[in-house]
């Protein structure tokens, strides 16, 4: 298994370095939190230094952490699968003695290594640009964040994979993928910290996976949660991983019978 992972890692790494231009474009598309950051900082300054209890530097810390979390959890597997199923290349993956799930998973993990240096650079620049920004208060938070962001990535990947599996039934799953994309932008905490959402929506969001992908990891990194709250976040994340893993298993079993192996 380690050998397989290593081989996939090596191959995809050389693949990714060819596509570094595309990777940078995707990243720019994910710039929304940074844009929202300037919007909210502007608002805070116009209102005499803070708005809704957030100061400029607090906004900066939140949105930089949110942006980083978004970047570290990106998953485009739904789009890839939809394409592969229609092109017939998914059949090639199915012929190999490895579940395509792991192949896509490794591809995504590998890409993080190309992406992270850029992300880190942007975050450092961001912190320097807004005076007084404290992204991390305690080193322990970085450690918890590390686990939280891994779980967040797995949740997001599993959701995307399930959307991708929907093309076994639908001809094209990209519409579903776009719907999910819009929902996640609105509900994960990309536009604003969830403190600014209406109370009823916040209550509802607790029961959805979205805040656990961006909002809560960002809160953990910036030290807004105490230890019990952090433990709760990790537990809920684990729960979502479990839920989507089961959904994935069921969809995989049923979907394979539907699969038409078109092309060729």
């Amino acid at each position, binding site marked *: 298994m380690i*050998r*397989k992972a*290593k*081989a*996939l890692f*090596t*191959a995809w790494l*050389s*693949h990714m370095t*060819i596509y570094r231009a595309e990777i940078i474009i995707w990243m720019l598309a994910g710039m929304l939190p940074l844009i929202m950051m300037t919007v909210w900082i502007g608002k805070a300054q116009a209102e005499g230094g803070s708005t809704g209890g957030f100061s400029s530097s607090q906004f900066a810390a939140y949105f930089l952490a949110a942006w980083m979390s978004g970047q570290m959890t990106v998953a485009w597997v739904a789009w890839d699968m939809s394409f592969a199923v229609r092109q*017939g*290349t998914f*059949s*090639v993956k*199915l*012929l*190999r*003695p*490895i579940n395509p799930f792991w192949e896509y998973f490794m591809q995504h993990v590998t890409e993080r290594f190309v992406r992270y240096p850029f992300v880190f650079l942007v975050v450092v620049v961001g912190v320097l640009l807004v005076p007084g920004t404290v992204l991390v208060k305690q080193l322990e938070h970085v450690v918890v964040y590390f686990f939280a962001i891994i779980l967040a990535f797995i949740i997001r990947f599993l959701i995307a994979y399930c959307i991708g599996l929907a093309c076994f039934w639908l001809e094209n799953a990209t519409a579903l993928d776009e719907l999910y994309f819009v929902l996640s932008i609105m509900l994960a905490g990309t536009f604003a910290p969830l403190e600014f959402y209406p109370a009823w929506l916040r209550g509802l969001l607790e029961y959805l996976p979205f805040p656990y992908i961006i909002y809560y990891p960002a809160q953990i990194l910036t030290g807004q949660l105490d230890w019990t709250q952090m433990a709760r976040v990790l537990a809920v994340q684990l729960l979502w991983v479990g839920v989507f893993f089961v959904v994935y298993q069921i969809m995989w079993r049923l979907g*394979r*019978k*539907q*699969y*038409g*192996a078109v*092309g*060729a």
Partner: protein
Amino acid sequence: MIEVQNLEKHYLVAEKEAGIKGSLQSFFKRQTKTVKAVDGVSFQIASGEMVGFLGANGAGKTTTLKMLSGLLHPSAGVARVAGFVPFERRSSFLKSITLIMGQKQQLMWDLPALDSFLVNQAIYEISDSDYQATMREFTELLELEGVLKKQVRKLSLGERMKCELAAALLHRPKVLFLDEPTIGLDVNMQVKIREFIREYNQRFNATVILTSHYMADVTALCKRIIVVDKGKIIFDGDFSGLLETASPIKIIGLQLERQLSATDLQSYGTLSSLEGLNATFRVARSEVSQRSAKMLSELPIADITIEDPPIEEIIGQLFSRAEVRA
């Protein structure tokens, strides 16, 4: 090695009439139709056998191969390959088969083929020594020298096909499903690929099912053929058997020493062509020896050939007969 019983595959196809009206109709009431792409197919193939799958476009050949390699879930019937149920996708099953479909790429487009080979080595858990031995053999047999290190997208179609073939056989599968492996290749390359498949079959005692629209592929490689039409098997047996059952005639070709007229030749059989000194006759199989003897004794003949009609024609006749029976 391969056992197939009453295998069926039905596709549900949405039917929509063209135009707005059709779209509206299908929106409210989806019209679907079941296509029986494979309709109750049974056969057995022994280990080491090479079998040719013949049939017109859409006969169900590819669909059958996809079920045998575990891609498609059979609608009915059972298939067993190397003792496994293909659809279960057991790791040891997948390691013992390969499916090659036209030019479907398993090679990574932007990297040299060698990189894809290394991924396959890891995924199929091939030991370094086996990998090197196989690579040496394949490089020699397929003349891969110098091709492996070029980016795949820069290779010619033939070079790419050779690399695809090598990648698909790197794990030395015991069962090969080859779906039109020579499509789009020039005659030279077709011969090379064919030779390679024969060599592979002999070295590893591999079982092979081959589909091709190039009859030469099938006649060169397969003793046994299975002819499929509209999802059903209409012939399964030796090549010679096919010739006897399907084609009651042989073709006698004459090279004459001097020009003769059609009327001179008519009495010797059905004259199918006469061009200059070359004449061809279609003669009932049972009358071939008697007729050719008569020609040799009575006509000024420089050379004589007795041949079966082209295999395409025989298959065509088989189909039209299946039509009549249906």
